[in-house]
């Protein structure tokens, strides 16, 4: 069974937890570039994502061997009818905006947070706000202060990054995963997940076990 139980063998590697992470945000903010930098440490001018793409990353954090499935989604509005089913079962969501384009920041509040509320099935799902493209500081249209205020208001972690220059890319994923590991309900859920990691769907999630009480 693929990507199912904890501590099964993955390409010869054992892992303790499997986490599903979703990258969302407007078209062209750099979601695919962040993912490529994190998984392959390269930077390329990438074509727009059509539909959904995903990558796998194995990492060790705080002594735990982790397997991350990271889902990269198309940003254009109409693609939301294709991507919303992928929110199900995610332990972490990364909301990305481009610090040089103000509309990509305001859309997070107007659009993307609503998508998370509607389609995320984990109450405690960790949200990380990422302001990307800080290498273009002279064109900045959203201040760091505004990012911090947004994150505080909506209970998100916050970082500014550059997929181009590597700044904070590794940290983004590490901080998110660290927070997931600190959230007992998410860790328990990741252990109990047997199915439906790779399959989107609109049916409600399977009943949670005792480990996922509201805490």
């Amino acid at each position: 069974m693929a990507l199912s139980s904890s501590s099964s063998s993955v390409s010869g590697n054992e892992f303790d937890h499997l986490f599903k992470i979703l990258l969302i945000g407007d078209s062209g903010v750099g979601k695919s570039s962040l993912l490529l930098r994190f998984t392959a440490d390269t930077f390329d001018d990438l074509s727009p994502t059509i539909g959904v793409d995903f990558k796998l990353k194995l990492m060790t954090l705080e002594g735990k061997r982790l397997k991350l499935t990271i889902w990269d989604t198309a940003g254009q509005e109409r693609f939301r009818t294709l991507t919303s089913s992928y929110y199900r079962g995610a332990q972490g969501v990364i909301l990305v905006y481009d610090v040089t384009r103000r509309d990509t920041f305001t859309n997070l509040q107007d659009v993307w947070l609503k998508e998370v509320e509607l389609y995320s099935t984990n109450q405690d799902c960790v949200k990380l706000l990422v302001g990307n493209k800080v290498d273009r500081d002279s064109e900045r249209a959203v201040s760091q202060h505004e990012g911090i205020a947004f994150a505080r208001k909506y209970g998100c972690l916050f970082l500014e990054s550059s997929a181009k220059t590597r700044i904070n890319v590794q940290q983004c994923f590490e901080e998110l995963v660290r927070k997931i590991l600190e959230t007992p309900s998410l860790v328990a859920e990741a252990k109990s997940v047997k199915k439906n990691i790779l399959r989107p769907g609109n049916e409600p999630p399977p009943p949670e076990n005792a480990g996922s009480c509201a805490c």
Partner: protein
Amino acid sequence: MIQIRDLHCFTVDVCAEDAAVVERVKDRVRERGRQWWELEASKGAAWYLHCQAQQSLSFIAAFNAIQLRMLIRKGIPPQLRPRIWLFLSGAAKKRSTVPHSYYKDLVDAVRDKTTAATRQIDHDLDRTFPTHPWLSSPAGQQTLRRVLVAYSFRDSRVGYCQGMNFVAGLLLVVMKTEEDAFWMLAVLLENVLLSDTYSDNLYGCHIEQRVFKELLRKKCTRLALHFEAMDFDVSLLTTEWFLCLFAKTLPSETTMRIWDVLFNEGAKVLFRFALGILKMKEEELLPMKHADELVKVVQDFARRSFDPDVLFKVAFDKVGSMTMQTIDKHRRKQQPAVMAELAGRSQRIM
């Protein structure tokens, strides 16, 4: 790995083995060109423009139509593509129903307008085939922009959907003139593909994905069951295939060969080739347990499919019969489910 230019000037990174395949395909394309010229000499100039069986009951026309279908499946020579595509697809006819200056007038009328569609187009221009010297040049990008913007105003309900940039980009490479590319894009969206494939909720795209999954279950049962057991949603691969008509997935000549038959035989061939790609990798995919490996194997195979004839053989000989009627039947069957799904979504949003 070495970097080469393929038949249509796209830069591709290939291993020595693939570079040899690309060269062989170039030779074969030249040979095919000679065959078409010889036929032209024996059957008369542009004989292919007068032989659609439904237009004439004559035996010769019917015979020519069958011969043409077989010839097209072997590939239209690149120099003849603009003319034959315009005719086969119905784009020439579509253009003939409007005033001669339609495209120019449309482009002039919308030049300085800004809409959500034009903003998205502007974001995508330099991300559309950066590996092609002309499409990545300012002139190429402005041409692509004019075509996409003009279309977004022709049908404002569709506007612009990502994916159309790759389709229009490759059309420009083939058709050479932007007006021809525009009409090809129009006929594709309005007549060849299922309507609403690119519209604001991607209704048609949702339908085609469901139809594809049903066909996979029928024609590639073991693989479909394997995907189900893995909880792997094949749309992860195929959404891009159906929205870019393989332009973002397969090498340029292989994509154009598929479009040769797409314009002559209809949208059913998209299913044929999507099934063909998976079928070719079936034995390799069946033992796989991890979705990431599976996706990589299929994507690498597609990216390296430089020889169209290998894929054509499987798509036409191993997939079985597929008529437009069957596809339409499947489409109708999926309508209620897709409508319910999309309606459920809009209710939740409101």
